[in-house]
């Protein structure tokens, strides 16, 4: 009986230790990613965003007061761009110049 309780306790301690080690390893991997690859990811996202912003302007420009395409084409694109509209409008509202490029920005200093 006592042996079984002891075994259970040892198992529980081992499992807790393994869990802690796993969490530590995961945190270390995330830290390393933050130190290294995360910046590339952010920049790649910013580059994609710039291209998408141009696409949004030429298709949905009328949403921010720039009629760029006949509405029939805009309507065809509409289902694909709806998820992006709110983020795109927020970005456009923050920019001081119409096609301000991320890499030449002072990041709001």
């Amino acid at each position: 009986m006592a042996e079984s309780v002891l075994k259970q306790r040892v198992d529980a301690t081992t499992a807790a230790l393994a869990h802690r080690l796993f969490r530590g390893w995961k945190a270390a991997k995330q830290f390393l990613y933050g130190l290294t690859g995360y910046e590339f990811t952010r920049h790649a996202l910013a580059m994609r965003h710039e291209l998408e912003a141009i696409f949004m302007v030429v298709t949905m420009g009328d949403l921010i007061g720039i009629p760029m395409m006949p509405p029939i084409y805009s309507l065809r694109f509409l289902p694909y761009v709806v998820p992006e509209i709110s983020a795109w409008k927020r970005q456009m509202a923050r920019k001081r110049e119409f096609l301000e490029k991320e890499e030449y920005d002072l990041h709001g200093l």
Partner: protein
Amino acid sequence: MNTLFAVAVGALTVYLAYTQYARRIDRKIIQSDPKRATPAKLYMDGVDFMPTNRNILFGYHFKSIAAAGPIVGAIEAATLWGWLPALIWLVLGVSFIGWVSDYSAIALSVRNEGNSLSAVAHRLVSPRTRLLLFLFIFFYLLLLAGAFVGIMASVLESQPRTHLGIILLVVMGLLLGQMLYRWKMGLVVATLITVGITLMGILAGPLTEAAFKGFNAALNAMTGGTPIVTYFDPTLANFKGAEAKIMPSLLFWAIAICIFCYAGSVLPIWRMAQPVVYVGFWITALAMFLGLFGAAVGALFKPAVAQFQIPAFKAWNPQLGPAGTMPLWPMLFVTIACGAVSGWHALFGTVGTARQIENEADMLPVGAGSMFAEFLLGLLALLAVSVGAKGAPVAAFANGLGGFISVWGVPRDYAVSLAFASFIVIVLVVTQLIFRVMRVTLSEWLGEVIPPFRNQHVASFISVLLAILLVLTGTRIYLWQLFGAANQLMAALSLLLVTVWLASMGRNWLYAGLPMAFMYVTTAASILVTAYNLYYNVYQPNIVAGRIVPVIGSGLMVVVALLLLVAALFIGVDGLRAFLKYLRRPAPAPRAAPARR
């Protein structure tokens, strides 16, 4: 005294300051609430505002704030006053001011919709603060660029063993950008190739030393061994002052560095600046990682490399040159900037990191945690220069760091090569970013009044030209201390904003207000001392000797010092007015602190 003891002091500082002070402030005063929506969640756009895991953000923020600052500052301070004052300031600075500034700036931005310091200052203090901030940023970057280009040019000129590694770093950086963004290669493979080749180039440095030495000699032979510029430098001849000579080889390396930085400033960021920084990061991280653990265990396994060689304390007021003065207060507190406290961290924290904070509970580990990690970097630099002892400060640092690395079985000569290269790499990659930000700041600051400044080539060229002028004056220590003063003033400004913000909410503002007052008075005093030193120690001897270039350079530095002081006074007066206004107003009803996590 050995390094193990100092590392233990550092570890204890981090533990006590984080658990006993920082956590208490986070819980009692800032009252971070994990349930409150952060700007990253409220305004998520997938680019600037993006909720990010705290561990990733910790790495990202640490990498963004850790540069050459903690290394150069510790080297200069240990050389001037000894290792003990430097160690005490590092420990006290990070415990009571450094983390406060970094963490509070992030909290300020998170609670103010992710706004930058200037935007918050515009609202809380006065509208002209943003303009003053631009002035600050440009001149302090200029001072930093001048100091870094000068240091790098002299190290490259005197250490031909580093040339191959540095050339390969630039080439591999360009290749990495192409691999990642054009050829769409995986990051791991591209990293292994580019970092591996750069590392081999650095380790092979001693083999190519003779060839590059011959190259430098050939450059100097072009003028028959005559210097291009001669000036009085009070830091030479064991701080007694002597004539310094700028040889063609030094000018060549200074111009080469500026061309590299110019390219980094005008090319798309993915093409050069970002990948070069990335490759450089691995080299530096490797050297620092091996060095820090080497310093910790060196005392046990290789005691010879872990014994302090320089005096614990040298003097309260070391004399630099015939008329120079360098009192411990206030000069130590601006000489060591980034390892103890830095305004740049607060600036970056508000515009970069605060917009990615997923949960208010992450503000402390990310903001304060990164500052404590930077403190360890400063501590490592201090240990390296304290055990190195041989030659000029940078050489002593490389010698000491090389000793720590050699604990792991790397031959001493190769380890010193790696240490030298890691120093140059971290300074070089930061300098190109400095020129980039200088160019953008100049465009934003003067572009609307003088349209040519909006052209990136014009703005970059002017920035490079001003930096070269500062290099030709040569007084590296004064340049560094002026930069440190501007940087610490920025920290004082961010602490001022936090104090005003806390007062506006009726919270206890003392934890930010007292460090702000100390930093404000100290940095203002240090600017006056530096301006005095520059005038009597550099400007006057050179004007008597009729040397025009050093006169223009040191005169420019005196003007910059006075401009910084005036800007600081304006900001201080505006801040005090705003503070008193909020203090007189009845405090809002207190908000219940969230349950302890």
